[in-house]
């Protein structure tokens, strides 16, 4: 008689891996990625729209001209020539920066990981919008932090709610290590922080001595080309800025960066070197030449036109197909629509039915560290064609209607009574909530 130990290392794993468990939802996404399923789940850009001849030219020229260096190790801070060009990308949004203040990372995601590693000990509080980017929540959770969500409405993060949360933390003897925010075309809510609120947010940050981590993947993807003032440009010292080329060029080259003041920058370089020595010189050169020699900004303008059309297709389809008691955000850029389900429906419970009907989305729970958000789902319009998007929404609407009938027949009450505020216009919640 014996115990079988399929995992002999079980007793050795670090505490921080405790929450890393197999998930039914993740398993369902294995089916969602099949071509038969309309994939409204992932936040993937439309890389098929890139000029591949130009990409080939750039790639070839890197090997031809600087092959030995490109295939060699590089410096921990990143290629200086690339950092100069990344300053140009920031300048396109009127964000002043020096190449010397930038640290190149493996996508913006590694930037978030290194920032959390730099600032957070287990148990530390991080403030984030509610809902917030799932990848950031994952990165923060690996450092055993407690994310406290601050509600949003159609103008983004609600400053009064932030003030309340900061006051509540102060009164309970705690400090937030930083506020994580995506002010432009937020993932997943699809809304942007108004200019007045940006100023108010920074006033509060000053008052409470709060560090702000500004993540800006979608700033250049406004459908009308509108540029909103970056928090970094309004208060350089208090804001750590995370940028990425994933949406303005391609996620496959894994280029992101962090822009920060000297002491933070220096520590980030050390952390970057400790993590992976340096970023790939090869993809840094490809990115540098793409930005230096190719009309990258024109390409971005073309892409956002594609995204505008797809967003329009999604919004039109939602308006004509979805039952009356659904609502959703109406983005002016980015990739995402945040939709609220009718009363009594739960986005996670609904997912299997949706995948059986061959349409996939991300349940709202993914975007809350405290398990909330079940009455919302995120729909992404970046990847699928307008035709597929319309078909996906038709399938989704049918799924929602069937579920509504079932819930009505069974008179299921929504678990927990509080409904979360939605960016599409309902009254904001006021209690900061606890996510410890």
């Amino acid at each position, binding site marked *: 008689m014996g115990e079988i130990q*399929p995992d002999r290392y079980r007793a050795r794993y670090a505490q921080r891996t405790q929450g890393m468990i197999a998930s039914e939802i993740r398993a369902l996404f294995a089916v969602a990625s099949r071509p038969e399923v309309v994939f409204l789940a992932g936040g993937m850009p439309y890389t098929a729209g890139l000029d591949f001849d130009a990409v080939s030219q750039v790639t070839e020229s890197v090997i031809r001209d600087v092959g030995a260096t490109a295939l060699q190790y590089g410096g921990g801070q990143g290629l200086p020539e690339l950092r100069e060009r990344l300053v140009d990308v920031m300048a396109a949004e009127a964000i002043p920066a020096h190449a010397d203040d930038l640290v190149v990372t493996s996508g913006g995601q590694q930037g978030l990981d290194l920032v959390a590693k730099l600032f957070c000990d287990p148990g530390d509080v991080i403030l984030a919008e509610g809902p917030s980017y799932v990848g950031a929540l994952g990165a923060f959770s690996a450092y055993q932090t407690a994310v406290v969500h601050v509600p949003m409405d159609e103008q983004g993060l609600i400053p009064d709610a932030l003030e309340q949360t900061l006051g509540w933390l102060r009164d309970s003897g705690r400090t937030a290590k930083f506020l994580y925010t995506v002010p432009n075309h937020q993932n997943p809510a699809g809304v942007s922080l108004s200019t007045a609120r940006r100023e108010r947010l920074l006033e509060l940050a000053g008052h409470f001595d709060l560090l702000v981590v500004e993540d800006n993947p979608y700033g250049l993807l406004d459908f009308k080309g509108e540029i909103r003032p970056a928090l970094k440009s309004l208060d350089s010292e208090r804001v750590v800025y995370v940028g990425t080329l994933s949406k303005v060029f391609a996620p496959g080259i894994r280029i992101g960066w962090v822009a920060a003041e000297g002491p933070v920058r220096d520590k980030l370089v050390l952390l970057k070197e400790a993590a992976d020595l340096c970023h790939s010189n090869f993809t840094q050169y490809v990115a540098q030449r793409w930005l230096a020699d190719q009309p990258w900004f024109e390409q971005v303008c073309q892409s956002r036109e594609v995204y505008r059309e797809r967003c329009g297709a999604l919004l039109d389809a939602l308006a004509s197909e979805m039952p009356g008691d659904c609502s959703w955000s109406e983005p002016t850029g980015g990739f995402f629509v945040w939709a609220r389900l009718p009363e009594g429906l739960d986005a996670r419970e609904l997912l*299997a039915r949706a995948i059986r009907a061959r349409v996939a989305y991300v349940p709202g729970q993914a975007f809350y560290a405290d398990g909330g958000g079940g009455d919302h789902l995120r729909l992404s319009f970046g990847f699928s064609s307008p035709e597929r998007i319309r078909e996906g929404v038709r399938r989704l609407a049918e799924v929602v209607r069937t579920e509504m009938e079932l819930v009505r*027949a*069974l008179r299921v009450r929504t678990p927990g009574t509080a409904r979360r505020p939605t960016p599409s216009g309902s009254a904001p919640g006021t209690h900061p909530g606890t996510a410890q």
Partner: protein
Amino acid sequence: MSGTQESLRVAVLAGGLSLEREVSLRSGRRVAEALTDRGHRVTRLDLDEGLVDRLVDADVDVCYLALHGKAGEDGTIQGLLDLLGLPYTGPDAIASAIAWDKGVCKGLLVRAGLTTPDWIALSSDAIQDMGAAQALDRVVERLGHELIVKPSQGGASMGVRRVGAEEALATALVSAFSYHDVVLVERFISGAEVAVSVVDRAALPAVEVVPRAGAYDFAARYTHGATEFYAPARLDDATLERCRQAAVDAYELVGCRDVSRADLIVDDAGQPWLLELDTCPGMTETSLLPMAAHAAGWDFPSLCERIILLAAARGAGRAPRTAPVVSPSGP
């Protein structure tokens, strides 16, 4: 390759569009690697519209079905492979269809005098169109307050909930209907969870399952270390024998072949209750059939090889597929 065993051309079928695609791909990868290590020539195939062409092109001796869920376990692929004349692992289409639907399978078990927890099947049609929601109190009246709610079709514990009150029952029904349009509400039996795998009509040692968090749900099944396993199960010999007998009886009754896994609960009086019968048991690192085989002294490749040899033997007498084909343009 073990001993003098000839090298076989094996197609390992895994993936598909079922909700259990990920688990199936994991099973398929492991089986394919094990059979390759044994010297067999292995092709891995996913289920899609090009499947029949690729199966014919691959010219295989046997198909290993590492498919879990709809279309892989419900008789669909089995019927298709019969049509193509290709031998495959596991039972035929009819036995697959019986075991796949938990309500049908339990009905058969009860009629044959085997012990399975009392249950009620509810379809979403009955709820939506016939007012069945008004009768939920009767479900509780008949089955008691502690219930298991599960989709009638499906595996990997997806959509399965344990509930303790009428209100929670309605919520659990909604969850389960997301996975399938018929749901079983089953009386909860408290006791030891045991899986008995049967290979070629003989039971392997029973594996006892002790989830650390209480429920043997998806996370407990597929997270390394989330569940403790004991093989043989920590039960007395007489009880173990009853479990073995129940598993073999179910295997024979349903008409299984090659391999099956019966999931049982052994109550405090030592009575085994059959919950369900799996005809395409998982072959992942945390799956129960490989653990049972290990306890019987077989390593994983030996288990896989044994299963394909059983299936290949059924194909031994058929006409070779390499026989000359009449040209479409005529002789």
